[in-house]
Each structure stands twice: as structure tokens, then as C-alpha cells.
């Protein structure tokens, strides 16, 4: 079946749910929403399986012309190539699992209208995401890009009657808009340089004549990357993602962990031909990614909201992906996108299950000891945690190790020390990640219960529609890594690299082949990253599960200023508030009070006042006495005659 069906079905589900859902009730909405997504997933896999087992030649399906002028022509075309196939596989499948999970998660506490609205937006999101990844040109990607941004805004603000949720939605939208502005300028740059938007045309033109395009591509790539920084929550535009946790938890899992936020990585990987020509832009990508990775990981150390920890962890992991892309290891970046989608979705859905069990409580200081009561959530959460921490043989180990190895092997022409610094930052981040995730697990599932009595009584395992997706995702978190074994296991052990190589590996003669490490160095790196991860886990376990948090409390008491700085997220939001928001509000107030009220209203009111004054004077001409009017007529007549006679 045509690729168009894959995105048409969720879109049809959106239309049905938004128009009919509120009247036909929850059962109808659940069936339509999950049914359309299930059908789309089946169609996607019916296309993917022959694609993967066949020759893997790029398929382009066009349903006609979209824009056609003498300077620009854009087709409505979808594209199935290894890169979009990889994205398609996990977007549809994880999307389907999260739809199923949502049926259980949203069932109790929403009205029919709210339930229908939720699933309509979720379906629309999936349709937009599929446009983003399947589109065959930059304009279709942009349509999907904006579509997912809209759905993200709508779903963050799903509980729109709560002030903070509405504010979080606005914040996400505005911050993303800043990034989208850069992305749009990048698209204009691409049009100026290449005169078109089709991937094949742009990339083949760039590859055919690198010398001609390379100087201008630096700027274009940076602008495109600004878009990725906004969408994928990188420093300095990451601030919207932690706030986005105000949305329902399945939304956090689907949009703000597994799929939408990886769109930036996908876009950079898609444009790898352009980025490889712009080495300075690549350096910026790597620096931003590496810095974000460690920065967000440090913040995550001291957060007490279960979802906030995971949110900062997501920001940090996205930083890893950009670090990989910047180092030229697009395959490792995309591989981490995929494995991260599984274990981070599992973690978020697990946290949703915990919150569900705790009756809405999100503060891990008030949890504890949930291990025995959540017999399915706990093991799946633990597996995903170990996968994220990078413990072999779970998925995160292979993808993270690939990124660290690529960063280590990276030898940029300029400033090679930065590459080593970024590798060290990545390694440290791995340790921090293991530590804060173990802290999260310890505080949530181990120790004594610290909530209220009602909560303790209330705690229960979630319904099957929620636990089955957890199990599936935990399973995938275990096995997904084997698709990308490091090269030490054999020359062709890395299936993902072989699969993605037509799209993501450098074209012949375009750039130097990435440096290959000797097996001994690679083994050493593996041992080092495993040791760091294990050390982080051990420390988290000892400090929080065994000793009950006494040591970190002492450290916090010893350095109160430093601890407060981290706990308050380096006060970046406050900084933006002081530097941007408040000056902007002050300027708006000036425009309101001075320009609008004083000047514009003043001029208009003065005009009205003059007219009124004139009327006040002239009305005395209206005596009401007809003979006065007749005299006026006479005088007018005399004046007229005088004028005619004298020719004056």
C-alpha cells in the first residue's frame, strides 16, 4: 500500500475523534485512535519488511505537484530510504504502544470531550511526525516540523485549566518559534543556494560541487541547526522541555522523549551531506551537544520531580546525539535516537505508572518502597534505567559506546583538543546519568514508603493496557542494541551502520573517512565507559538505597550555594526572565502606556475633541426660527448673485 496511507490513517483518526469523538464516547475514541494507528503501523511494517530484506533502493511516491511556479516547483512526495525507514519503524511502533498505554492512563479522570481531544491531538501528532520523517523535500519536512510543534503545544497545555500547564504550553511554543525562525532562514538559504527543496536535488548538487557551496553552507547549516536546537531542546533553547512535563505522561513519553524531540537529530542527519561540507558548523553542533549533555545531566542530579529528572535526562541524551552528529558519526547519533526512543519511552511510561499508582504524586521524596507493589513497573523501569546508564548488553550501552568511541576517534582539523574535551564530557555525563538514574530508582522503589497513609493504601499496579507496553518497551530496550554492535565484534557486526551507510556515510572524496580505532583502544573505551556507568550506579545505589541519602545531604549542607544553584537548574529560567522576558514586558508596557495610550489615543481623542468643540460653537446657528433660516438663504443668494455678476 502507498506510503500515504501511513500518515492518512492517523489523520483520519484525528478528524473522526475531533468531530465525532465527544458525542460518541470513550469506547469509540479508543477504538478509532488506536485502530488507525495500529493499521498505520501494520502498513508501515508491511512496507518496511520488504524494503529491509530487498535491495533497499530509495522509494519516492509522489501524488502530484504541490507548488509549481517558474522558479520553484515542489512535489507532494514521500520517501522511503534507510534513514526514514529507521525513523518510521520506531515512530509508528512506539506511537502505537503509547496509544494503547494512553487508553489505560487517561480512562479514569477525563470527560468524554477531554478524552476525545487528547486522542485527536495524539493522532494528529503522529500524522505530522510521519510527514516530517517521510517527506521527500524540505518543505514537507517543515510542514511536519510545525505540525508536531503545534501538537506538542496543544498536548502540553492539555490541562488548560491549570495555570502552569497553559504557561508551559506557551513557553514551549514561543521557544520553539525561535528555533523555527532559524530553520526557516536555513530553508531560504537552501533555496537561494540550490533553487529547490528536493533532498536528492539539493544533496547531489552539494556533493557534485563542494567547492562552490561550502563557503555559504556554514551559515545555512548553522541556521538549520538553530531549528534543531529549538526542537531538540539543546542549550540554550532547552528550557521548554522540562516545563513540557506539565502535559499528560504518555505525551511526555511519545512527544517529549521518543519522537518529536529527536526530529532535530533526524534533520541534521538528513542534511549530513551539507553538514559534512561545513566543518565549522559541525564543530558548533558537537560543542552544543556535548555541553548540553553534561549541563542537563548535572541539573538532573538534584531534581526531585520524577518527570523532571527524566526530562533533563532526555535533554542530556539529545546532547549526546548531537555530539555524535557533530563528530561526524551520524550513524551512532541515529542509533542512539532509536535505542533512546525505546528505553526513554519505557522510563516515562513507567513514571506514569508510578504517578498513577501514587494518585498524582510526582515528588520522589514522598515515594519509596514501591518495588514490591509495582511488580511489573519496577523491573521494566529498572531495565530501562540500566539501558540508559549503558550497562551491557542493554541497548543504551551499544549506542552510547558508539557515540563515545566516535567522539574519541574524532580528529577535527582545527582545535582537536576540543574533541578530546567533548569526549571527556561525554564520559563524565555517562557516569552522572548512571548516578542520577540510580538515585531515581532508589528513591522511588527502594527504602521505606514516605507518602501519606491514603497513598500507601491506594498504591496498585496499573491496568494491563499500561503494563503490556512497558514490557514490550523493556524487551526492546534489551535487544535493540544488538543491531549496532561495535566493530570489535566483527567487521560487519554493526547492522545499523550497514543499513544507514547509503545515506549517512561520507560520499567518496567528500571528506576523510572517520578514523578507525584499533581493537585494543576500542576494548579499553568499552571497559572505561562500563566502569564509569557501573561506578555511577554503585554510588547512586549506596548513597540512596543503602544509606538513605545521608552522604548527599551532608554534601549539600557543606556547599549550600553550589547545591542551590544546581537544584534551581542554574537559574537559567531566571536569567532569561531577567534578560529577555522582563525587558520585553517593560518595552511592551512603554508601547502600551506611552505609544498607544498617550500618543495614538491622544491624537485621536484630540481630533474628536476639536470636532466636538466646533460643533458646540456652530450649533448656536440652529435657532429653530424659520425666518432666521430664510434670512440665511437670502444672504446666501445675495452673495451668490454678487459672485456671478462681479465675476469675482
Amino acid at each position, binding site marked *: 500500500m502507498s506510503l500515504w496511507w501511513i500518515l492518512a490513517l492517523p489523520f483520519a483518526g484525528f478528524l473522526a475523534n475531533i468531530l465525532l469523538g465527544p458525542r460518541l464516547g470513550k469506547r469509540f475514541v479508543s477504538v478509532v485512535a488506536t485502530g488507525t494507528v495500529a493499521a498505520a503501523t501494520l502498513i508501515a511494517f508491511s512496507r518496511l519488511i520488504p524494503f529491509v530484506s530487498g535491495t533497499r533502493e530509495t522509494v519516492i511516491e509522489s501524488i502530484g505537484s504541490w507548488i509549481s511556479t517558474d522558479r520553484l516547483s515542489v512535489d507532494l512526495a514521500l520517501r522511503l530510504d534507510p534513514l526514514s525507514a529507521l525513523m518510521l519503524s520506531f515512530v509508528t511502533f512506539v506511537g502505537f504502544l503509547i496509544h494503547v498505554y494512553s487508553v489505560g492512563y487517561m480512562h479514569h479522570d477525563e470527560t468524554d470531550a477531554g478524552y476525545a481531544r487528547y486522542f485527536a491531538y495524539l493522532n494528529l501528532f503522529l500524522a505530522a511526525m510521519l510527514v516530517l520523517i517521510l517527506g521527500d523535500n524540505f518543505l514537507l519536512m517543515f510542514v511536519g516540523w510545525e505540525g508536531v510543534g503545534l501538537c506538542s503545544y496543544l498536548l502540553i497545555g492539555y490541562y488548560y485549566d491549570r495555570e502552569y500547564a497553559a504557561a508551559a504550553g506557551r513557553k514551549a511554543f514561543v521557544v520553539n518559534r525561535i528555533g523555527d525562525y532559524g530553520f526557516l532562514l536555513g530553508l531560504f538559504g537552501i533555496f537561494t543556494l540550490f533553487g529547490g527543496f528536493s533532498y536528492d536535488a539539493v544533496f547531489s548538487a552539494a556533493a557534485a560541487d563542494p567547492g562552490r557551496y561550502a563557503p555559504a553552507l556554514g551559515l545555512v547549516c548553522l541556521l538549520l541547526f538553530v531549528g534543531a536546537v529549538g526542537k531538540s531542546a539543546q542549550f540554550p533553547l532547552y528550557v521548554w522541555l522540562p516545563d513540557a512535563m506539565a502535559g499528560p505522561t504518555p505525551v511526555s513519553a511519545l512527544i517529549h522523549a521518543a519522537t518529536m524531540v529527536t526530529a532535530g537529530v533526524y534533520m541534521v542527519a538528513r542534511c549530513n551531506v551539507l553538514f559534512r561540507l561545513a566543518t565549522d558548523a559541525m564543530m558548533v553542533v558537537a560543542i552544543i551537544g556535548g555541553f548540553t549533555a553534561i549541563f542537563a545531566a548535572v541539573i538532573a542530579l538534584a531534581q526531585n520531580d520524577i518527570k523532571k529528572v527524566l526530562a533533563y535526562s532526555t535533554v542530556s541524551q539529545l546532547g549526546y546525539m548531537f555530539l555524535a552528529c557533530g563528530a561526524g558519526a551520524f550513524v551512532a547519533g541515529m542509533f542512539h535516537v532509536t535505542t533512546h526512543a525505546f528505553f526513554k519511552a519505557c522510563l516515562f511510561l513507567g513514571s506514569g505508572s508510578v504517578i498513577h499508582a501514587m494518585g498524582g504524586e510526582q515528588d520522589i521524596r514522598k515515594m519509596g518502597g514501591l518495588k514490591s507493589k509495582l511488580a511489573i513497573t519496577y523491573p521494566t523501569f529498572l531495565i530501562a534505567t540500566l539501558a540508559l546508564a549503558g550497562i551491557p548488553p542493554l541497548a543504551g550501552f551499544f549506542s552510547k559506546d558508539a557515540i563515545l568511541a566516535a567522539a574519541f576517534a574524532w580528529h577535527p582539523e582545527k582545535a582537536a583538543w576540543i574533541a578530546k574535551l567533548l569526549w571527556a564530557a561525554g564520559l563524565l555525563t555517562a557516569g552522572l546519568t548512571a548516578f542520577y538514574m540510580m538515585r531515581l530508582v532508589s528513591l522511588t522503589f527502594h527504602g521505606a514508603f514516605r507518602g501519606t497513609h491514603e497513598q500507601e493504601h491506594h498504591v496498585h499496579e496499573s491496568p494491563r493496557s499500561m503494563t503490556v507496553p512497558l514490557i514490550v518497551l523493556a524487551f526492546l530496550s534489551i535487544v535493540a542494541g544488538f543491531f549496532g554492535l561495535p566493530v570489535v565484534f566483527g567487521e560487519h557486526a554493526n547492522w545499523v551502520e550497514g543499513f544507514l551507510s547509503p545515506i549517512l556515510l561520507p560520499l567518496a572524496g567528500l571528506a576523510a573517512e572517520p578514523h578507525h580505532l584499533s581493537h585494543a583502544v576500542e576494548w579499553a573505551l568499552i571497559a572505561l565507559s562500563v566502569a564509569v556507568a557501573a561506578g555511577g550506579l554503585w554510588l547512586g545505589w549506596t548513597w540512596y538505597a543503602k544509606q538513605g541519602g545521608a552522604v548527599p545531604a551532608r554534601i549539600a549542607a557543606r556547599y549550600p550555594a553550589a547545591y542551590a544553584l544546581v537544584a534551581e537548574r542554574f537559574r537559567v529560567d531566571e536569567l532569561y526572565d531577567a534578560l529577555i522576558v522582563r525587558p520585553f514586558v517593560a518595552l511592551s508596557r512603554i508601547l502600551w502606556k506611552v505609544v498607544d495610550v498617550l500618543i495614538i489615543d491622544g491624537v485621536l481623542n484630540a481630533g474628536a475633541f476639536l470636532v466636538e468643540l466646533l460643533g458646540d460653537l456652530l450649533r448656536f446657528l*440652529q*435657532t*429653530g*426660527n424659520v*425666518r432666521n433660516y*430664510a434670512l440665511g438663504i437670502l444672504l446666501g443668494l445675495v452673495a451668490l448673485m454678487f459672485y456671478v455678476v462681479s465675476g469675482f
Partner: protein
Amino acid sequence: MSGPVPLLHVLILSVALFAIGLTGALLRRNAIHIFLSIELMMNAANLALIGYALSWGTPEGQIVVFFVIAIAAAEASVGLAIFVALFRHTKTIDVNQVNLLKW
């Protein structure tokens, strides 16, 4: 003396009548007097028209006069009806008393 009346004479009479009518219309307070004065002005105009028609030997001026007389008849009936209505309403036809549309 014989021959037609000179045009100038006719016009002098017409202007005199018009001026008398105008003075009456402006100075009188009784609505009926004003009305009569206006009739006088109208007939002064008629006289001027006839005088020109006579002087130039063309019939158009006389034709117009017939129209004016016909319309004046209609106007008289409407005007008098207004006065009757006015009197019923205010018990006066003194136009100085009828100044409701004052500032």
C-alpha cells in the same frame, strides 16, 4: 402711447413685488402672512418669466408659468394643511413660538 410694455418696466414691477414678498416673509410672524408673502414672491418670478417670453417672442416662459401655477396650487394645499396641523398641536401659528428644533 402704444406698443408693448417695455421689458424693463415689467422687471422693475417684478423686482418690487419680490422685494415686498421677501420683506414680508422675513418680518412677519404669522405663518399665513409668511405664506402669502411667499406666494407674492412666486408670482413676481412668474411676472418676470412672462416679461421675458414677451420680449423674446418665445413661448417657453409662459409654459413654465403654467407649471409654476400648478405646483403653487399643490404647495398651497400642503402648506395650509401643515398650518392647520400646527395650530391643532400648539394653538398658535406664530412661527416664533415654533422653535422646537433649537440647539
